[in-house]
C-alpha cells in the first residue's frame, strides 16, 4: 500500500496526470463547442485517430513536426466539417453519421498506414517527428512543483491555454453568443437572421480542429508513432468529461484532469504487480462510476430540495 502512495505523491505522477489529461481535454473542449451549438459530436474518437495518423505521415514526409501538426489539425477540421455536411445538409442523423466516421477511422487508418508504411500495426518504419517539449524558466527550478508543470509537450500547454481561449470565445465574442443562442433556442436565432446551419458548421469545424490537436498529441507527443486504435476511447471519455463538467470550459478541465488522474494511475500501477488487464480497465471504470455518481448526485439534489421543503425550511 505504501508503494501505492509513493506513486501518487511523486512529482513524476503529477507530471504524468497532466501529460495524459491533454488529449482528453482537447477532445472535451471539442465536445463542449459542438454541444453549445446543440449538436452532439460523437465523432471525436474517429477524428482523433485520423489526425494522429495524418500528423505522423506528414511529419515523416516533410520532416517538420509543425507541418505534421498543421495537417493533423486541418484534417480534424475537415472531418468535423464533413460531419456537418452529412447531418446539416444531407439531414443524416448526426449520431449515425458520427458512428460511421468512427468506424471508417478504425479501418481507414490501418489501411492508409499499410499503404504508406507497409505495416498494419505501427508506424515505426516512418521517420515521423515529435513536437518539442518546453522547459519553463524559473518554474522548472522550483523543487516539487517544477517537475510537475515544466517540461511538457507544447500541446499540453496549448490544451490548458485553450480552456481560456474557448471560455473567451464562447462568452465574450459575438460568434460565441450566436453558438450559445443556436444551441439553446435555434428558432430564436433563426428569427433574428442567424443562420443555424452555418453556425453549427462553424461549431463542428472548431470541434474537429480541437479533436485534431488531441489526435496529433497522441502520435507526436504522447508517443512518437502511430499505432492502430491508439486513441483507445479517449474521444468517448471526453464526451463524459464534458457532460460531467457541466458543459463549461473550467468544468471540462477539472473532469479531464480527473480522468487523466485515473489514466495516469493505470499507467503507474503497472509497476506494481497488479495484472495489466485490470489496471488498464481503470480509466473506463472511472468513467462509468463518474457518470453514475454525477447522475445520482443530480437526482439526490432534487430529492433533498423536496425533502427540505417538506420539513418547512424555506428552500
Amino acid at each position, binding site marked *: 500500500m505504501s508503494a501505492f502512495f509513493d506513486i501518487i505523491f511523486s512529482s513524476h505522477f503529477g507530471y504524468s496526470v497532466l501529460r495524459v489529461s491533454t488529449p482528453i481535454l482537447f477532445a472535451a473542449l471539442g465536445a463542449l463547442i459542438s454541444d453549445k451549438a446543440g449538436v452532439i459530436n460523437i465523432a471525436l474518437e474517429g477524428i482523433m485517430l485520423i489526425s494522429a495518423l495524418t500528423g505522423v505521415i506528414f511529419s515523416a514526409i516533410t520532416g517538420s513536426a509543425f507541418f505534421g501538426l498543421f495537417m493533423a489539425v486541418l484534417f480534424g477540421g475537415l472531418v468535423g466539417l464533413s460531419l456537418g455536411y452529412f447531418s446539416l445538409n444531407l439531414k443524416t442523423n448526426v449520431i449515425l453519421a458520427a458512428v460511421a466516421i468512427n468506424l471508417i477511422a478504425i479501418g481507414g487508418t490501418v489501411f492508409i498506414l499499410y499503404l504508406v508504411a507497409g505495416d498494419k500495426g505501427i508506424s515505426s518504419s516512418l521517420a515521423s517527428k515529435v513536437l518539442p517539449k518546453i522547459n519553463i524558466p524559473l518554474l522548472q527550478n522550483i523543487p516539487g512543483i517544477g517537475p510537475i508543470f515544466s517540461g511538457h509537450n507544447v500541446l499540453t500547454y496549448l490544451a490548458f491555454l485553450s480552456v481560456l481561449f474557448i471560455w473567451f470565445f464562447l462568452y465574450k465574442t459575438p460568434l460565441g453568443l450566436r453558438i450559445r443562442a443556436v444551441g439553446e433556442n435555434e428558432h430564436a436565432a433563426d428569427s433574428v437572421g442567424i443562420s443555424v446551419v452555418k453556425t453549427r458548421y462553424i461549431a463542428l469545424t472548431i470541434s474537429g480542429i480541437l479533436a485534431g490537436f488531441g489526435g496529433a498529441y497522441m502520435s507526436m507527443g504522447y508517443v512518437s508513432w502511430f499505432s492502430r486504435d491508439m486513441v483507445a476511447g479517449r474521444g468517448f471519455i471526453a464526451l463524459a468529461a464534458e457532460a460531467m463538467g457541466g458543459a463549461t470550459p473550467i468544468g471540462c478541465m477539472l473532469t479531464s484532469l480527473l480522468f487523466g488522474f485515473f489514466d495516469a494511475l493505470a499507467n503507474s500501477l503497472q509497476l506494481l504487480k497488479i495484472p495489466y488487464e485490470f489496471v488498464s480497465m481503470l480509466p473506463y471504470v472511472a468513467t462509468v462510476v463518474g457518470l453514475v455518481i454525477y447522475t445520482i448526485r443530480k437526482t439526490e439534489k432534487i430529492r433533498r430540495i423536496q425533502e427540505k*421543503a417538506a420539513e418547512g425550511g424555506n428552500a
Partner: protein
Amino acid sequence: MTDEPDAILRMENITKIYPNGIMANKGVNFSIAAGEIHGLVGENGAGKTTLMQILFGLNHPEEGKILLEGKEITIANPNAAIAHGIGMVHQHFMLVPSLSVAENLVLGVEPRKGVSLDLPEAIRTTEALSKKFNLKVDPRSAIRDLPVGTKQKVEILKALHRGARILILDEPTAVLTPQETDELFDELKLLKDQGNTIIFISHKLNEIKALCDRVTVMRAGKSQGVFAVADVTEQDISRLMVGRDVILRVEKSVAKPKKPVLKVQDLMVVNRFRKKAVDDISFTVRQGEILGIAGVEGNGQRELVEALTGLGLYASGDISIGGKDIKKLSIRGIRDLGTSHIPEDRMTYGCAADLSIEMNLLSYTHDHPEYNKNYFLMDINAINEVSNKLVEEYRILCSSPQQEVRRLSGGNIQKVVVAREFSSNPKLIISDQPTRGIDVGATEFIRKRLVTLRDEGCAVLLVSADLNEVMELSDSLIVMYGGKITAYIEDASSISEEALGLYMLGLESQGPEEIRRVCHD
C-alpha cells in the same frame, strides 16, 4: 368595407397551398394604412398565421404579390422582411432564456469592440430604446427570470431595434393578465403615435374593439373584408369569422355537487429551481362540479397538475382521489382510480403523433381483455369497432381511424385526446388548457362534453389561461398566484374579469377563512 387610399403595405391575391394539399390562403387581399393599428381576426386554421408568415418571409405564396409603398417586393426570408422594416413578435417567444435582455436584443447585430462583444454598448442601446418607446426592461436580467409580459416587451424592442416600422403581433395577449394587456395596449398606442404601423392578430373581439382602427376578418383562407372597427359590433365580427352566431356562453344548469372526489391537503411542490411552485394549498373537488383554477401561467398550475396526475413529485401534503392516497401510486395507478387527464401539451403528453388515431384512442385501454384475444394478440375487430364509434361520437375529422394523428388539425388532435380520456368512465377529470389553440367548433364541443360529464356526476378540475373559458365553464373558482390560492369564488358567474385580475396578479387576496371554504369540510 372601406377603401384604401394611402396603403403603406398591400398584399394582393395571395394564394398559398401547402404540400399536403391544404389551401391556407385563397386569393387574399390585405392592406394596411401607415400609422394604424390593424386587427386581423379569424378562427384557428382561417389562414391568418399563414398570411403573416408570408409577409414575414417564413412562407412563400404560390400566387399573388406584395407591395410596399406602391413598389412590388419579394420577401424570401425573415432577414428580407426585417430589411423592409417589417418585424414580427411571435406567439412563442423567440428568446434565448439563459442570455440577458441586452444580449437577446443585439443577437445577430452585435456591437463589437475588437474581436469581442461590446456588452456595455449593448446595454446602453437597450436602455436608450427602452426609454424611447417607454417599454421598461432591465437590460441585465436573464430572460428566464422575467415575467411573460416583460419578455414580450423585449420581443417588441428587438423588432424595433432592427428598424421595424410595421410590427406584426401574433396573439400577443394570449399569455397576459387583464392588467398586463391594458399596459400593452397603452404601449402599442404610443408606438402608433410615434408613426409605427401595427398588425394585431387576435381571437378576442373585445380587444380588437378596444385597440384597433380597422379590422380584416378571415374565414377558411379567404378575407371576409376590411372594416372600420367603429362601424361594426363584436357580434358582426364573430358572425363573419365563423359564418354563424357563436354561442359564446356555455349553456349549463346550476351544479349539484355531491361527495368529494379529489381532496388536496397542505400540498407543497418544489420545482427544480428550488422554488416553492405550489405553496401549501388545500382544496376539494366534488362530484358534479367544475372547479376552475384561474391564474397567470407559471403560478404553480403546471406543478399542481403534475403532482395530481403523478407526472411530478410533491414535497409534502396529501392528495387523495376517491378516498385513496396517491403518494405511492404510479401514473397508471392514479388513472385506475378513475382519473382522466387532458394535458396542457397535447403533442408531448396527449398523444403519440406518429401513431394512428385508433392506436391513440386505445393507448390507455390497450391491455383490457375486450381488445385482446387469448391475452396475447390484439383483437383488431374489437379495436376497429370501438375506434369507429369514438371517431363518430367525437366528430373527429379524418380519412379513417388508421390515419396518423400528426396529419390532423389541432382541434381534431385534441378531440382524439378528449375521446380517449372521456370514454374511460372517469370519476375525476383534470383538464389542463383543454381548448388552447383550437377552433371554435372543437372548443364548443369539448366544453359541452365537460358539462355533460359534470351532470353525470364527474368531478372536474379545470385549469385554463383563457379567462373567458375558466369564468364561463367553471361552477366555482380558485385563483392561484405565486403558488398560493389567493381567492375562492363560490359562484364563478358572480365575479367580474377585473376583480379576478386583481387576485391573479396578487394585488388582492382573500383571508384564510374565506379560502378555506373550498375544502368543504
